């Protein structure tokens, strides 16, 4: 079956612009995660969804970052007024549920460059 897909693959934007990153999880997966991978910070958790709700937004680095999930499926991560330090690869993952032993399946990522 289809894996996790993300779009766009690459995004170049100017400082101050807003960007939207999309994640399409594996069908039937109730849990969805966003991570960020950057040179200085490594891989870090941003936010997760159980269904359409986001119980934990603790990893979002600032209030310029927001995310939503609709219909228990597609999720969008929005970054407002982008800054150069937002440049990173944004990875989405999904899993069947929130059990600790469940595997998280990752998408290929969106590489964001803020000029």
């Amino acid at each position, binding site marked *: 079956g289809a894996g996790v897909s993300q779009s766009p693959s690459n995004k170049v934007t100017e400082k101050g612009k807003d960007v939207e990153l999309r994640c399409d999880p594996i069908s039937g997966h109730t849990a969805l995660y966003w991570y960020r991978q950057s040179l200085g910070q*490594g*891989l*870090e958790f941003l936010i997760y969804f159980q269904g359409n709700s986001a119980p*934990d937004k603790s990893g979002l680095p600032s209030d310029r970052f927001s995310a939503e999930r609709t219909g228990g499926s597609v999720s969008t991560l929005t970054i407002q007024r982008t800054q150069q330090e937002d440049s990173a690869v944004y990875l989405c993952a999904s899993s069947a549920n929130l*059990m600790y*032993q469940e*595997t998280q399946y990752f998408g290929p990522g969106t590489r964001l460059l803020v000029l």
Partner: protein
Amino acid sequence: AQSVTQPDIHITVSEGASLELRCNYSYGATPYLFWYVQSPGQGLQLLLKYFSGDTLVQGIKGFEAEFKRSQSSFNLRKPSVHWSDAAEYFCAVPLSAGNKLTFGGGTRVLVKP
């Protein structure tokens, strides 16, 4: 604080040689542990995971890992490396509610012909 450490940032190995990547964790209880691999320009792919039972875990692509509680380690091994194993490897632990993964810093593996 709970954490995962990968002491080696880079490892260079000759094709056909054995490989061992180190992972140490700091966690009160017996953790669940994962190894992921990231090939250039790709997302993360699960190699193997440990959550109970046999401490030697077999994974895909010929990899295995051994959980050692006494050493707080979960090292990844492969007996004979192929050029296609050149990638970055991450050890991870799911922490707290929501199964959020905390990753080690990663080990980049370079395979020499």
